[in-house]
């Protein structure tokens, strides 16, 4: 079930709101939905507020420009592969609260055209902001929205191209290799500043994050396979150590994925995901001395 709010872009200054409640099966015809996987943050509160999706409308022949806006999370190129687009008619923008049923619907590619005028963005933001103020549910999202809109918008100022890779300033990425439970290696690229748990989820790697980064569990436990890389990481805080103490299959180079932030020195790091089938005792194991 989701609640969608439609904004009519035929008149960008004033806007109309249309609220509908539907299921993913009976979404109205001609709506384009851009599903964005939100950033994981430490506080559960912020995470919930950001659980919504936006869409980018096709050019509306009626309007003189096509405004759009993206969440900060869109800026990672990995995410562009995880966006699903459904054709939109009538230039409506849908905002879905709590859309994802299975965590995230990770399917298709972004559409070919993406028009990125800045001024349109600002007007859109103002009108959307007005809408947000009127909705108590989304009220708290306004600030995070503003953050998302303006923190990295330099990327879109100059870009009229189709993919987010090309553009003004590209976020640097490092190579990270996950070794999953079956011993399979998965190579991904992680933008600097993103935490490993988030990066894993964006790449469909099976790394659990039960507390969604609140340092209240140990399910995102990863093992840094090379001591050299382990030493390059910041020392774990007391809170992280407390959670690591309880982690399954703890080793001397274990860390919580949500606390490992990508930085240039970690390029090429290999992270193993602990597994019950890896000869670790399920119960009563003795962790190696630390």
């Amino acid at each position, binding site marked *: 079930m989701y609640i969608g709010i439609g904004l009519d872009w035929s008149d960008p200054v004033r806007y109309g709101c249309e609220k509908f409640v539907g299921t993913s099966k009976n979404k109205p015809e001609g709506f384009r939905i851009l599903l964005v996987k939100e950033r994981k943050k430490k506080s*559960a509160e912020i995470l919930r507020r950001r659980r919504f999706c936006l869409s980018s409308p096709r050019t509306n022949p009626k309007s003189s420009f096509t405004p759009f806006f993206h969440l900060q999370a869109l800026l990672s190129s990995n995410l562009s592969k995880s966006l699903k687009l459904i054709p939109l008619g009538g230039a409506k923008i849908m905002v879905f609260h709590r859309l*994802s*049923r*299975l*965590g995230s619907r990770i399917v298709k590619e972004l559409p070919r055209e993406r028009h990125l005028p800045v001024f349109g963005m600002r007007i859109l933001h103002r009108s959307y902001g007005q809408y947000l103020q009127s909705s108590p549910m989304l009220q708290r999202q306004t600030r995070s929205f503003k953050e998302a809109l303006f923190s990295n918008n330099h990327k879109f100022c100059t870009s009229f191209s189709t993919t987010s890779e090309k553009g003004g300033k590209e976020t640097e990425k490092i190579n990270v290799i996950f070794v999953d*439970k*079956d*011993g*399979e290696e998965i190579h991904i690229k992680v933008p600097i500043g993103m935490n490993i748990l988030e990066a894993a989820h964006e790449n469909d790697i*099976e790394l*659990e*994050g*039960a*507390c*969604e980064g*609140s*340092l*209240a*569990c*140990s*399910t995102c*436990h990863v093992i840094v396979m090379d001591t050299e890389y382990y030493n390059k990481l910041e020392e774990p805080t*007391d*809170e992280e*150590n*407390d*959670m690591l*103490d*309880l*982690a*399954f*299959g703890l080793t001397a180079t274990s860390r919580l994925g949500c606390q490992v932030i990508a930085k240039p020195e970690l390029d090429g790091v290999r992270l193993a995901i*602990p*597994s*019950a*089938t890896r000869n*670790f005792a*399920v*119960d009563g194991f*003795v*962790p190696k*001395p*630390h």
Partner: protein
Amino acid sequence: MSRYLARYMVSRYFSSASSRPLHVCIVGSGPAGFYTADKVLKAHEGAHVDIIDRLPTPFGLVRSGVAPDHPETKIAINQFSRVAQHERCSFIGNVKLGSDLSLSELRDLYHVVVLAYGAESDKDLGIPGESLSGIYSAREFVWWYNGHPDYSCLKPDLKTSDSAVILGQGNVALDVARILLRPTTELASTDIATHALSALKESSIRKVYLIGRRGPVQAALTAKELREVLGIKNLHIRIKQTDLSVTPADEEEMKTSRARKRIYELLSKAAAAAKTSKADPDQRELHFVFFRQPDQFLESDERKGHVSGVNLQKTILESVGTGKQIAVGTGEFEDLNCSMVLKAIGYKSVPVNGLPFDHKKGVVPNVKGRVVSHTSGDISQTEPGLYVCGWLKRGPVGIIATNLYCAEETVGSISEDIEEGVWKSSKAGSKGLMQLLEKRKVKKVEFSGWEKIDAKEKQMGIERNKPREKLVTWEDLLAAAAN
């Protein structure tokens, strides 16, 4: 390595090739149940999973066991909700195994039955006076303040004296100590049940004693919870300096476990800080009492049938090899007065008809999650299609995350058995279960029913500035679900 490769290839083969429906029923909707469901759904494209629970509300101890002042631990509910909303998964609440339907009926309806219903009973001390009123298990007390419908009428006596004794020093013991001693202003904005908040507001309990039969190095609590309780404002911690002396055996234990070392250091720091703080008449105190085991409960003279204290025997530690030390009585006794005792010495699972059960360990005998019907010598005969996961499999230990690996092991066994073609017959699955429940007039609650309960609780919570106001009686829950 080849074993992993084989399993990987097999699961890939079967997940793509098997469109033949695999009907799975999971009994219990706590972390073990949901992690198992999640992994089964991911491993088998033809799997349909039904999760049943005797309560109308899912999530097990995440809802009814995690303390109200630990909301971040409850975030796991988000992930579990996503699993329940999966198109091949259904949650069916208010269905009790053993009374609404039997285990054998369930096994007839489903290819795979996974029992993940945890541990709903308690270990007993087996000492005189255990049946006096005022003595509760920590589980009952936790369920009372968390609004579990079975214990909303517990009415624990918090007004007779200023002391409460908690037997055990694990995280559950710390949880109940914290709820008893935390200022109620802080609890008012949590999802604690209203009847508990009112009772705590009128509570006269100011001193809580956490009794452990062994020493600080062996305490079962974990660092995060200890740090939290040591950081509560206006709560004075009392630890005897003499209890903190370590023996060489203790040093060994600390060497093998960094967690223990950290806990010991925290307790030492707390003991040192306690010495410098002044005594204040209305202050709240938390006493860590080590090397004492309860010998009997003392009955009150003024209130017959009610507990008035605990008789404790001093203990010393003896090594039993492999780095383990046990507590042994010394013959010296002392009394501790109190008006309430909470036993936080561990949970115990409850067997059902038709289920092999190890009464000594309180678990279902199993090999990697496959239920064992009997063992002769080295060979274990397993029950086809019957599995366990979670506390019912491993005993009541571990954290929420422990179930992740437990589920992985159990689902690994299920996948292996499917590979060997253990089940070729077709089963009725969900349809059969629904027909059976209809026939027996069971008022089942589906996930949409829980969502209605959830919405109502959140709505009521907004009015009182709480994240939710829990519905605490069966009638209220079922009415809200049917709305």
